[in-house]
């Protein structure tokens, strides 16, 4: 595996954090004694609570439900008792959102959904219904309800399974492929069946032969495997579609609008678990990193507080200054050690106060053009920054701010240590 990923103009991204982590098997963290489960864990409105204080819940039991198309249920990640509802700062939106507190109690018991080992006998609508019922979101970070993407079959001719895992701190997707190839193949087949597509492409950053067993399975089923050059930006689904199929997704549309559905590889596994094994989405694989412990692939229940993960890793929470949830390039810092894992987070990075943020003392822009050179969607972050600082919001559209994919490469290369992030600033 490589120490660096190469971006446009030869800029390098340090991939040391995930170096050799593909060889590190998942370790399952014991469920937390207290789980904090946000009701809102996906794009769309959250469901209404089905439980109240004092209720006993089983692992996998639905605790929210809603009727709206984009509403997904949330399930209890542990067996225990609901001790109350609290308002906590949400790690994605940053605003105060409601969460259910569940304290572990007694032996673990599961409440599973119906199992369908012979998924091919299911209709498309039944598959979509199972995926929705299991509360599956895009596990690559977008948190978009997966069943919606499976419903866009009519004009879709390609399904891309994204195992590109381009973020510098994540290795859990490749690990998943190595550890659970058969379940992943099932997931891909379920998705292809639901979408009724002819062509499936499995996109990976690995080189030929590295995923030996899985590659064999893909070949047997006629699924194309695309080994993509290691680069961070190509992990974006818009750029992946362009790289693999040469189709450009208009800035105001989504991949299905150009006939392509992109699903993360971890979403495939969740789909298999939901449809074949009847398991709702209550846990996932993540990659943990801290300088003290190095990297580690962990299997964690949703609702597990960051502090529980740190304790498991033998890190004193007092020594931690910042915790990044998700990608180190795109993920926000957790507001609190109690912040729980939500469905879309594939990584946790714990940083001590000795590890200064590189963006602490920004200087005025020197217009070096590094941000413009590296921008993977060919916009001009330097000019956007200038317009935003001058309050010239009317020029943002002219400068194509809608094309920005929030990759933050513009900030990454900035010699003046500016968090350029034009789209984020504009919000």
């Amino acid at each position, binding site marked *: 595996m490589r120490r660096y990923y190469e971006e446009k103009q030869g800029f390098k991204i340090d991939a040391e954090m995930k170096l050799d982590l593909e060889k590190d098997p998942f370790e399952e963290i014991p469920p937390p004694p207290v789980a904090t489960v946000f009701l809102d864990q996906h794009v769309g409105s959250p469901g209404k609570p089905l439980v109240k204080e004092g209720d006993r819940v089983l692992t996998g039991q639905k605790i929210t439900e809603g009727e709206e198309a984009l509403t997904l249920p949330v399930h209890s990640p542990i067996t225990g008792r609901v001790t109350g509802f609290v308002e906590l700062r949400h790690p994605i939106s940053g605003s105060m959102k409601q969460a259910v507190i569940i304290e572990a109690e007694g032996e673990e018991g599961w409440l599973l959904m119906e199992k369908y080992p012979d998924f091919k006998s299911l209709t498309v609508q039944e598959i979509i219904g199972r995926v929705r019922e299991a509360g599956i979101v895009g596990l690559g970070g977008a948190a978009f309800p997966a069943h919606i993407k499976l419903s866009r079959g009519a004009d879709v001719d390609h399904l891309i399974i994204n195992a590109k895992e381009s973020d510098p701190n994540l290795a859990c997707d490749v690990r998943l492929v190595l550890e659970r190839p058969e379940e992943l193949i099932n997931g891909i087949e379920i998705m292809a069946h639901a979408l009724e597509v002819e062509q499936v492409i499995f996109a990976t950053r690995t080189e030929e032969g590295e995923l030996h067993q899985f590659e064999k399975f893909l070949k047997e089923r006629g699924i194309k495997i695309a080994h993509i050059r290691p680069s961070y930006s190509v992990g974006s689904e818009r750029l992946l579609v362009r790289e693999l199929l040469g189709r450009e997704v208009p800035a105001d549309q989504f991949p299905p609008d150009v006939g392509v559905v992109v699903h993360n590889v971890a979403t495939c596994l969740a789909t298999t678990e939901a449809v074949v094994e009847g398991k709702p989405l209550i846990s996932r694989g993540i990659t943990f990193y801290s300088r003290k412990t190095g990297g580690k692939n962990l299997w964690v229940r949703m609702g597990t507080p960051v502090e529980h993960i740190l304790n498991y890793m033998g890190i004193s929470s007092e020594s931690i200054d910042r915790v*990044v949830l998700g990608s180190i390039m795109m993920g926000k*810092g957790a507001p609190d050690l109690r912040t729980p894992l939500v469905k879309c987070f594939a990584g946790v990075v714990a940083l001590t106060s000795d590890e200064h943020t590189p*963006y602490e003392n920004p200087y*005025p822009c020197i*217009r070096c053009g590094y941000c413009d050179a590296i921008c993977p969607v060919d916009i001009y972050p330097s000019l956007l920054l200038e317009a935003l600082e001058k309050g010239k919001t009317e020029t943002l559209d002219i400068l*194509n701010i809608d*094309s920005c994919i929030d990759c933050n490469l513009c900030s990454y290369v900035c010699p003046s240590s500016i968090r350029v992030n034009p789209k984020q600033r504009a919000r």
Partner: protein
Amino acid sequence: MDMLKGGRYSLRPELPPHLALGVSKDKVMLKTCVIMSIPLILGVLAIGWEALWQFLISAGTVLILHTIIQFWESQTGRRVSYPTTLSPLVLAMIVGLSMPASSPYTVTVGVAGLAMVVFKYLQGRLFTRKFVNPAAAAKAVLLTVLTLMIFLEDPLRLGMLYHPHHLRLDLLSSTGFTEAIAFYETNTLTAVQSLFFWKTHGWIGGASGLGTLVAGIIACFWIRLKWRIPLAFLGAMAVLSAGMGFFTGGDPISRIALHVFTGSTIFLAFFMASEPQSTPMPEKSQYLFGIALGALTFVLQLAGVLGGSIIALVILNLFTPWFDKIGHKRAIGMKGGN
């Protein structure tokens, strides 16, 4: 529920990203200083200790002023504009290397001081960015003012921009050009060889045209300077001078040697015209900027203003906000560029 109360849980919720390339402004400045040492060393070797003195006078002036400004900023609670000496040092090198060795020391001190105080510090403070290249603007303004001081004994010579010897040259004719280029001949080198390799007068930074070219190319790769500008600028100058050579019946190579490899062109191309803050951002605009700069410089050179490149640069710098609005690439997912 008690575990949800208390302050010991709080973290710093920072926005992404949390990783950086680690190329700081200071590192870029340090690399620039290292690269500019090449023309400086070659200048001293070709011209002599006078060249080193010019640089030291410029550096001394800039660094003294930098220390005063820094002290004043910290005493008055203002944010320190330049926390390290590297950025001022780059300015000092540019000023020093853009002066001829024969420049009176007082003029060098004046250009360096004006560049540091007015065009670097004040321009940065008042406008949040620099619209004109500090060294070029300081030199253009001060030398023009000196030229206009007709009460001085020899204002044209002192101003150097509109040097009387240069103004008498006739670069529009073949014979005039032959006379002009003969000025560069030495005991051992022809005029063309001298212009390419080893000049003993003119801008210190361009003493070795080839050496400065190599330093510039290193800068393009090492500090990723806006290479399209020097490429288009030198390209335009080369095409125009070759064309003029053909048109007037002279030797095109000699024409290219004089117009492109004169110190004020070759040094300015890489170390002043590509200065990031005062030049356009869109790639196509950078080409256009370079071509326009080349055309204007060429016209000024034909008019006998051999160091006219700095005037051309200051004029073009003022059009940078306009250049920023044109020549945009087509963004991915969008229909057309600007």
